[in-house]
């Protein structure tokens, strides 16, 4: 496991989709404010199919607000206001009448692991159930598949009936990922998933993400610069509520930057 971790950064850039890959998300002039306080201003960027798109930046740079806006989470927060466009396969998600349908296409994993107070099995079966999948056979298949993909199956297969909220932090975070996978999203967004997770689990999840990339697009917000380096095809640096720089991860990390601040941040001179 540790070898794997070491080999990734030295192994060079992650082979990602080329420039020609279709665009999954086009963000145009996205802004987020809470009450009078702007959290994000004028962000425009494209995200391609089957890439891992890393977002780095110091605290309060607007990274989480970005994810919440893409997921239309402002519906649940009367103080949050979003402006600009988010095009999902060319279609503005702001125009969707059923915001719940968007969240089924775009899954999100929060920083702190949240096991719902249901059994491990029901945690993963939650989303399929509310989508109308009710037969035990179908659910069994989905639950096992998602838990396997989240690298949790072997640890919990004998105790699927224990409460998800009572698993260890690392297990809960993988349970959260399994749950997000249970509805076959086309985009998976992760918000600083390793913040409350031990290093071993972090490495396991990183390995999981590299596998998942073949099936979906991943947006990875991270506070660990090296994690972006290990995983992301392209990386964006958010700074003070703006998208400061976007580039191929390899280029950014080998010093080919447009703004000196980017180099400073990557090399840990602030943040």
């Amino acid at each position: 496991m540790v070898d794997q971790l070491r080999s990734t950064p030295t192994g060079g850039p992650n082979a990602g989709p080329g420039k020609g890959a279709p665009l999954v998300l086009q963000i145009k002039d996205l802004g987020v404010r809470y009450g009078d306080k702007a959290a994000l201003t004028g962000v425009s960027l494209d995200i391609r199919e089957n890439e891992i798109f890393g977002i780095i930046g110091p605290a309060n740079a607007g990274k989480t607000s970005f994810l919440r806006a893409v997921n239309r989470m402002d519906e649940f927060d009367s103080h949050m206001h979003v402006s600009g466009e988010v095009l999902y396969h060319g279609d503005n998600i702001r125009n969707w009448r059923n915001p719940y349908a968007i969240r089924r296409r775009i899954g999100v994993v929060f920083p702190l692991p949240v096991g719902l107070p249901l059994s491990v099995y029901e945690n993963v079966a939650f989303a399929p159930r509310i989508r109308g999948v009710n037969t035990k056979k179908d659910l069994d298949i989905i639950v096992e598949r998602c838990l396997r993909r989240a690298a949790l199956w072997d640890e919990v297969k004998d105790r699927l009936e224990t409460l998800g909220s009572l698993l260890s932090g690392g297990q809960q975070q993988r349970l959260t990922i399994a749950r997000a996978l249970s509805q076959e999203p086309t985009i998976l967004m992760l918000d600083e998933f390793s913040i409350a997770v031990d290093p071993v689990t972090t490495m396991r999840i990183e390995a999981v993400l590299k596998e998942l990339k073949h099936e979906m697009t991943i947006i990875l917000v991270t506070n660990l610069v090296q994690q972006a380096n290990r995983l992301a095809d392209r990386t964006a640096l958010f700074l003070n509520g703006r998208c400061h720089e976007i580039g191929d991860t390899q280029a950014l990390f080998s010093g080919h930057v447009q703004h000196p601040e980017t180099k400073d941040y990557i090399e840990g001179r602030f943040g």
Partner: protein
Amino acid sequence: MSTAPGPGLRPPEDRLDLAWITDKAVQVLMFIGGISAIIFILGIFAFIMREGLSFVFDRFDFLEFFASIRWAPTSNKNPTYGALALIVGTASVTGVAMLVAIPFSLGAAVYISEFASGKTRETLKVLVEMLAAIPSVVWGFIGLTIMNGLIIDLFDVPIGLNVLNAGIILGLMAAPIMTTIAEDALKAVPDRFREAAEAMGATKWQMIRQVIIPAARNGLVSAVLLGVGRGFGETMAVLMASGHAINIPDSVFDSVRALTATIAAELGETAVGSDHYGALFALGLFLFLVTFAINLTADLVVRGIRKQ
């Protein structure tokens, strides 16, 4: 992977499915539940106005109502509706009740919040809750029997159903809610205040007196106000323990009659639509407005703390 629908075409999953419709319908239902409280409060006001309005317009005499002590609605020759004695009756009973309830309930709140711990605290809280659970009519019965005898024996007075009796009963009834709210207010004082006081070498009592009580002041005031409101509106216990005699009391050993008790005692004997009936609703309206004002003030006082 999924194929991209062109702009303008609705993606197939963006439809208003059953879950979406259910969610909207439930939201409307819950909203109705939410505003029901407003509807009921307005309803109470409207229906009491409806029954009392003709009396208020046709018969009501402001001066008589607030300045005359003659409440004689059943007099054949000259029915009068002076509520002063009833107001004084309610006020005197509530006053004695507060003399009993304020020190004891605030003292109990301080003890439970600042001194007691663990099992003691839980036991005391349960006992306070039990005090609150005893029904009003049972309190009245206790006033009528136990307290009555006790007051006659102790003070050597002819009648034990008086201001003192009803006041003590009412004080015990109002105390639990005051204790609970005051204790909440004391508990809401941030621990850093306590730590800071301790770091300066203050004793517990100095800390309570100089830091905690001032910080919880608004909550304590609000607790007292709600206790006053409780005493003001209490019916059965006052009816049974106060002696129910129209009288401006000279001492706590005099019997009095309360606003609430008057309604309870007379409503059954009036004809719907009569002046007497309307007058009782006018008393109800007065009670409603006064308790509304007290509750509103208590709420504003509490809101004052949150702003700080």
